[in-house]
């Protein structure tokens, strides 16, 4: 007996807190609708609805919880009805119910649904009783199948549109650029001032590997240029400017050039 009472108390507390949350979200939603209706967007309205639906769900879960005693078996009886203002009730209901009197009680403590709703429910119950259990089972199955089909279609559509959109708009990296940058850092492809960039590619493929050797002064030793003579200047100074974004294509004749041009200071 005592355990049930305790359970009842706990359940009531949980219910009260849930209902308070629900009330708060309703209040904020109404405020939003009344005051910000000109700036309101559909996603924001959807958010509020989703919030309310979530809270209703948790309320349902609390009611269905196994530790909840059968509230149906409890009865609420008003003990005292008075037409005077009751401060306690005012405070509890935030000023909405000032008097606990004969007109207020039937509305608030009602357990029967409205007459129209009761009619509809009776109708539905008689309809349901008329169908045989097999037919009912078949109807349930077909409903489930249609719902799952629909869900599948929606999720597939969502996935496809998402990935398609990503591929179209959000190309965040370019593999060709990656290779060009890695080559630049690893061995200076497209970087050095002694290698004419991009537009000289066709010229370079024609020339043989060993061009003239420019023996620079004690400073920078220059590898032979395989471009036209005009390009054999140590300083490019803006003559050969690759348009940004086009890393030059370098011939790999550089190895042979090094052999022929090696002027190691320590060589005998």
């Amino acid at each position: 007996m005592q355990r049930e009472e305790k359970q009842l108390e706990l359940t009531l507390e949980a219910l009260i807190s849930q209902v308070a949350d629900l009330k708060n979200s309703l209040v904020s939603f109404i405020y939003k609708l009344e005051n910000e209706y000109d700036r309101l967007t559909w996603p924001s309205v959807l958010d509020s609805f989703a919030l309310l639906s979530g809270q209703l769900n948790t309320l349902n879960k609390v009611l269905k919880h196994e530790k909840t005693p059968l509230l149906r078996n409890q009865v609420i009886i008003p003990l005292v009805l008075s037409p005077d203002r009751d401060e306690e009730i005012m405070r509890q209901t935030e000023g909405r119910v000032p008097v606990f009197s004969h007109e207020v009680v039937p509305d608030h403590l009602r357990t029967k649904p409205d007459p129209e709703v009761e009619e509809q429910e009776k109708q539905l119950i008689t309809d349901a009783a008329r169908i045989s259990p097999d037919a009912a089972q078949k109807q349930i199955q077909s409903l489930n199948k249609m719902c799952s089909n629909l869900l599948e279609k929606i999720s597939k559509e969502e996935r496809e549109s998402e990935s398609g959109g990503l591929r179209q708009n959000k190309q965040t990296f370019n593999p060709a650029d990656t290779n060009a940058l890695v080559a630049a850092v690893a061995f200076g492809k497209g970087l050095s001032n002694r290698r004419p960039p991009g537009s000289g590619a066709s010229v370079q493929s024609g020339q043989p590997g060993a061009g003239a050797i420019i023996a620079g002064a004690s400073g920078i030793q220059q590898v032979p240029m395989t471009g036209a003579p005009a390009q054999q200047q140590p300083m490019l100074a803006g003559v050969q400017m690759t348009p940004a974004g086009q890393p030059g294509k370098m011939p790999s004749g550089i190895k042979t050039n090094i052999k022929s041009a090696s002027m190691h200071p320590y060589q005998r």
Partner: protein
Amino acid sequence: MEAPPVTMMPVTGGTINMMEYLLQGSVLDQSLESLLHRLRGLCDNMEPETFLDHEMVFLLKGQQASPFVLRARRSMDKTGMPWHLRYLGQPEIGDKNRHALVRNCVDIATSDNLTDFLVEMGFRMDHEFVAKGHVFRKGIMKIVVYKIFRILMPGNTESIEPLSLSYLVELNVVAPAGQDVVSDDMRNFAEQLKPLVHLEKIDPKRLM
């Protein structure tokens, strides 16, 4: 056989053979901001650090076919920082399971007469570039997002132009040899940057 973790290795003097584990990718200029936001969230909480470095690559050509490469880097925006000399070996041909590029690496801080010293030793500058970007850290991992600028007139770091419309993204760890678990951590981190950036092991020899 995997080497025991660093904390258990006895200190016998000399240097530990350090390896650099590397993953590289790139991101287009317009997506840089989203990448930086994501990195700021994923990485250790520190002040966003930008850098502007000038790197010169020096070659020593001997009788052998492949020249010896040393990289000298100096900071252009931070005063008082030492020059940084780095040697990077050939990438280790590990099994395909290793997720990152692994190569031997030696890092040394030097004074600022480094270029004169190298030239006297017989090195010649092969190429140079300017790197400008951001650096982030997560534990021992370092993530660098930078743009490479070509230097138009040798020696003049003011006249530079960007090499491409992308930023290079590098994830690297310098750790002792044999710590293969590092590359697993790197791969997990790289997963978090998809689909913005695809960090992968790019063999530079393939791009020659």
